[in-house]
């Protein structure tokens, strides 16, 4: 379809071949989206800090959590189209690199396509064959990286296939917070197919917040795999704020070590004619593991949202809870909540709650009786609906999530 990227490591040949084989069997949708957009090299801007980025880029990336004040971040990665513009590490115990840098500096073999299979689908294959960039973030053993690392994948060129491959490694006992914002310049078409592979080692904690803000003609296909070892914790928040053409994602978190924990929350708002298919799965592979998925979706205008979630227990002594709530704000919008519980062992405790519907008339009446107008009541209830409190979130992330929630509530009630 396109010219292949050069092989980055001599051990990568088999992976490359698998990707070719898989892409040869691409579904019609995969083939269309991958061939329609090009992995062109663009974004030749020079910038060595967020503040030196062009003003329109800065303003757009601000909306997905990128801050100019780099002192409030432990590191920064900024990719424009297919070029890694900024890679900066500002604290001890941390390493922020581009994928290309990492191939030169460290042995990526134990991590590269280990949490996400290279031939999972046409998009993963396309990332292997045509992808450029992506970040590699490593928290060294025992490092407590208090300030968040910020990363931004920015699409500026038109008709771009942006296919970054991210690898995050939290070594034993480390703590790492990452805020990633993915966004595009207004009026651009394209596809963003990003791979993220997380390795949360023994006793490590990773808090990952991903904020997406796209435009009407962008297709989004992130592919994420997470491996959590003994006593490790993976906390993730996903927020999607704006219209897009189509989105499909289904991160899979494997709890492979005893006492591993995960908490996955997502907040999706469908605008315009967005088609969003967002889910996640927790696979419990070790005893005394715990996991929860909290999925909240609001569909407005003519959007369609599929909210999926699956808990798969492969061993005894695991506990999982899935909460899937959908709020329909417009008669033309559609919402499908699809919770699944899979018990492959007997001594497991998997539960789910799911609901789909409009705001309750009783709640609106209740708030109106306290003096709020219909719009004010709606806004308060939408905010309440989207409120997601998860233990272990650092203050800086919490206040950012709060302000994002406020923005969405205003739009939804608007």
């Amino acid at each position: 379809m396109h010219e292949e990227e050069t092989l980055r490591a001599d051990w990568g040949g088999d992976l490359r071949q698998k990707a070719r084989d898989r892409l040869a069997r691409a579904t019609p949708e995969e083939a269309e989206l991958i061939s329609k957009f090009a992995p062109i090299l663009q974004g030749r801007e020079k910038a060595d800090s967020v503040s030196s980025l062009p003003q329109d880029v800065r303003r757009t990336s601000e909306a997905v959590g990128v801050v100019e004040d780099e002192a409030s971040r432990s590191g920064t990665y900024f990719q424009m189209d297919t070029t890694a513009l900024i890679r900066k590490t500002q604290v001890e115990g941390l390493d922020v690199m581009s994928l290309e840098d990492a191939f030169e500096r460290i042995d990526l073999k134990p991590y590269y396509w280990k949490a996400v299979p290279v031939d999972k689908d046409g998009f993963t294959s396309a990332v292997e064959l045509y992808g450029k960039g992506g970040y590699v973030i490593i928290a060294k053993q025992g490092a407590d990286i208090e300030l968040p690392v910020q990363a931004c994948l920015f699409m500026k060129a038109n008709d771009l296939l942006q296919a970054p491959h991210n690898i995050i490694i939290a070594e034993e006992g480390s703590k790492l917070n990452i805020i990633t914002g993915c966004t595009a310049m207004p009026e651009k078409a394209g596809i963003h197919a990003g791979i993220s592979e997380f390795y949360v080692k023994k006793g490590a904690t990773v808090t990952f917040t991903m904020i997406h803000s796209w435009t009407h003609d962008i297709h989004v296909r992130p592919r994420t795999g997470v491996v959590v070892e003994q006593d490790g914790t993976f906390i993730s928040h996903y927020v999607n704020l704006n219209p897009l053409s189509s989105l499909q994602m289904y991160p899979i978190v494997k709890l492979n070590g005893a006492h591993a924990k995960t908490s996955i929350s997502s907040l999706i708002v469908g605008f315009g004619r967005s088609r969003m298919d967002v889910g996640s799965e927790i696979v419990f592979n070790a005893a005394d593991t715990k996991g929860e998925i909290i999925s909240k979706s609001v569909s407005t205008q003519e959007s369609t949202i599929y909210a999926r979630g699956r808990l798969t227990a492969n061993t005894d002594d695991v506990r999982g809870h899935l909460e899937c709530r959908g709020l329909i704000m417009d008669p033309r919008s559609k919402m499908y909540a699809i919770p699944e519980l899979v018990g492959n062992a007997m001594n497991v405790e998997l539960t789910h709650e799911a609901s789909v519907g409009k705001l309750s008339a009783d709640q609106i009446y209740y708030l109106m009786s306290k003096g709020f107008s219909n719009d004010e009541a709606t806004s308060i209830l939408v905010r309440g609906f989207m409120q997601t409190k998860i233990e272990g979130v650092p203050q800086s992330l919490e206040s950012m999530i709060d302000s994002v929630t406020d923005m969405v509530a205003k739009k939804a009630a608007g």
Partner: protein
Amino acid sequence: MLLEVVDLHVEVKGREVLRGINLTVDQGESVMLMGPNGSGKSSLIHTIMGHPDYRVTKGAIIFQGKTLNTLPTDARARLGIGVSFQLPPKVNGVTLSKLLSEIHKISKNDGEPIEKYVELLNCSDLVGRDMNVGFSGGEIKRGELLLLLAQRPMFSMIDEPDSGVDVESIRLVTKAITELLRPRDSDAKDRPSALIVTHQGTIGKHVNASRAYIMIDGKIACFGEAKAIVDLVLTRGFEECVRCMRRKR
């Protein structure tokens, strides 16, 4: 007259729940509304507050000379009508303190600082929790009364403040009602009023009401001086009222 309910007939989903209610509340007056469960007391509150499911088929609700029948709920609240609900809905993600601050934003009178009322109603443990989620019976009433104190309406309707709560809660509830009825200033015109709904009558021993109504089966069965009616209900229950109504018929 502050509130005048005239020959009020109300339907909920095609079923008549109020069948010709006449009731008045004067400025500065506390009135008790008593009656067995299911007699229509809460229906009257919801109708006065403008619940969309309660359809007035005949009669009128007049507040400060203005007919309320078609006014939306929030407009009624802005005129100075407030409710402490018996069974308020759970509101996930919205804490009591959030709701208090939102009420503070829209209310005109700055009045007393709300912290004082949080303390008065012993609600400091409650304010951080999502509204009515996992609240006990007593906590629901304290939360509702706290919101009402933040609103400071001219006319409060308090639904079953004494049902399913312990002695300590009754004491707090009584304090809150007394506070709600306290005149805002020396001007007698500004004395707030209340309609207190109870099926047990216990609260009648604690608040200083002037008159009481008894409602049976969607109709006013009896009304008169509060003390006499409360004593009657507390000693003989509503059985006597039902018999008396039959005799009248």
